[in-house]
């Protein structure tokens, strides 16, 4: 048996229907029972997944051309503004954009979910009019079936770990991590832990630009490192970062996706966001990958942060493990016992990991070797507020 496997070798086994595929949870049990050596010999792919609120999401739409043509200047979809500072009938509908009439009850994410549900969406656009695009206004309806193109392009998804949010103040606060009772009344966390993609390949040894993934029920791709990709976060011996670290930009055809795995959400007193389901296959190329993919919730630590101050450097209150978080309560360094609840769905993440496993077993999904790996050294820069520089070159 060779010391390494290649993407090509694993794809050949997938083609023949001979690949052994396990979910990340199954892999941890398998390695416990049979050991690292056997696991490396027999397991080819480990499927990982997450289903959580991912604000930095949206869809590019190309509406097709009307007759006479219009060069859309302002675009509204069900009263939600879409960005159209692009070519004539291109627009980007951002998930968090809110309706001009309904506010945070309905936003870009809901437009995307409505399109996926097969509903008609109202399109209204205005233009200054040009010689080649004379139309100044358009008022019509579109559907996912009819529209020329629609693809999801999410600049930041699939966070490698995150934070645990608590509130030390004496009043309830409403955050993107949900409502937080005062006096450490509850703690909110958002990662699939041992099933989460980037926690099973902590140094991005198999995941990079071009990786084929499960995105919202369709086959999609990793397009780039995600915005705020922060690989230099403090890590534990097993490679897992103790807070939000790597991120992914992902892309896929909206028409092939399903409402089961793409859902709109309105977070109280915060705003609109999109729940996105992502699954990533990890090839077991060597024994290192066996170790990484067998990680368990008890070995993944995450930093608890006080969200009450609203500052860039919120106070840290120690770390806990995902095993503790899943138990329903954690004990903070200050001795406080705090009930916990997740924001991302483990139930859905498991479904995605199993579905991706089935696709691979049936020979419908092949692994793609990255054309470029994600940075492990990128520095994460803040925005400093300053005056204009005095000297111009």
């Amino acid at each position: 048996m060779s010391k390494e496997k290649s993407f090509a070798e694993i794809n050949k086994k997938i083609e023949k229907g001979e690949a052994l595929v396990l979910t990340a949870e199954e892999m941890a049990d398998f390695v416990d029972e049979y050991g690292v050596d056997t696991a490396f010999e027999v397991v080819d792919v480990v499927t990982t997944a997450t289903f959580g609120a991912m604000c930095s999401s949206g869809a590019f739409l190309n509406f097709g051309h009307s007759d006479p043509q219009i060069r859309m200047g302002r675009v509204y979809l069900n009263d939600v503004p879409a960005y159209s500072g692009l070519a004539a009938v291109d627009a980007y509908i951002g998930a968090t954009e809110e309706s001009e009439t309904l506010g945070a009850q309905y936003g870009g994410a809901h437009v995307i979910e409505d399109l996926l549900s097969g509903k008609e969406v109202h399109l209204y656009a205005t233009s200054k009019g040009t010689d080649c695009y004379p139309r100044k206004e358009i008022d019509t309806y579109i559907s996912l079936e009819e529209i020329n193109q629609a693809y999801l392009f999410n600049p930041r998804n699939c966070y490698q770990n995150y934070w645990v949010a608590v509130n030390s103040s004496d009043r309830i606060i409403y955050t993107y991590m949900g409502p937080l009772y005062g006096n450490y009344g509850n703690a909110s966390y958002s990662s699939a832990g041992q099933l989460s993609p980037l926690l099973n390949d902590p140094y991005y040894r198999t995941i990079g630009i071009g990786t084929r993934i499960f995105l919202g029920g369709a086959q999609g791709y990793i397009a780039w490192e995600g915005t705020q990709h922060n690989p230099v976060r403090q890590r534990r011996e097993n490679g897992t970062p103790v807070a939000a670290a790597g991120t992914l930009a992902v892309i896929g055809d909206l028409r092939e996706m399903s409402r089961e795995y793409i859902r709109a959400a309105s977070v109280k007193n915060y705003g609109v966001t999109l729940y996105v389901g992502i699954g990533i296959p990890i090839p077991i190329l060597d024994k290192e990958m066996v170790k990484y993919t067998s990680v368990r919730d008890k070995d993944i630590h995450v930093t608890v942060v006080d969200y009450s101050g609203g500052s860039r450097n919120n106070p840290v209150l120690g770390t806990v493990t995902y095993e503790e978080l899943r138990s329903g309560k954690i004990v903070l360094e200050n001795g406080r016992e705090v009930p916990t609840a997740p924001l991302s769905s483990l139930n859905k993440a498991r479904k995605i990991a199993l579905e991706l496993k089935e696709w691979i077993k049936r020979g419908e999904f092949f692994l793609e070797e990255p054309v470029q790996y994600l940075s492990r050294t990128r520095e994460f820069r803040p925005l400093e507020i300053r005056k204009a520089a005095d000297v111009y070159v």
Partner: protein
Amino acid sequence: MYSRRVKLIYRPDKVGEPIIYNLIKRFDVEINIIHARISPDEEGKLVMDIKAEEINDLEKGINYLLMEGIEVKTLDKSIVYNEEDCVFCGACTGLCKTGALKMDEDSWELVVDHGKCLLCGMCIDACSLNALSLGVNGKR
């Protein structure tokens, strides 16, 4: 057996009186207190189920409370769980103080125990998918 969930609001001057004792003793009703916040010289609040063999006894009991000057609100509303819209994230469970909403530890699906619900409504605020709402007779 007839049962009704009620919320009682006591004026501060009534807090010292043995009203629940009298209610049980005189009207032979079964009381299950779910939530109570009663202290001297403050307005008191109490949520309870009141049960009786005969509907008449139940009505008489409630009339007695009204005669004593207690405000009685019947809690005929309940939390309505629309599983179709739920993604089983579990966000609501962190805000639920009584354990009426819990995640099943194996399936990680939401389990709703209406009997434990105090209708505080915090789960509705916590659910960003609009899967929980307040309704009458299980309807939105």
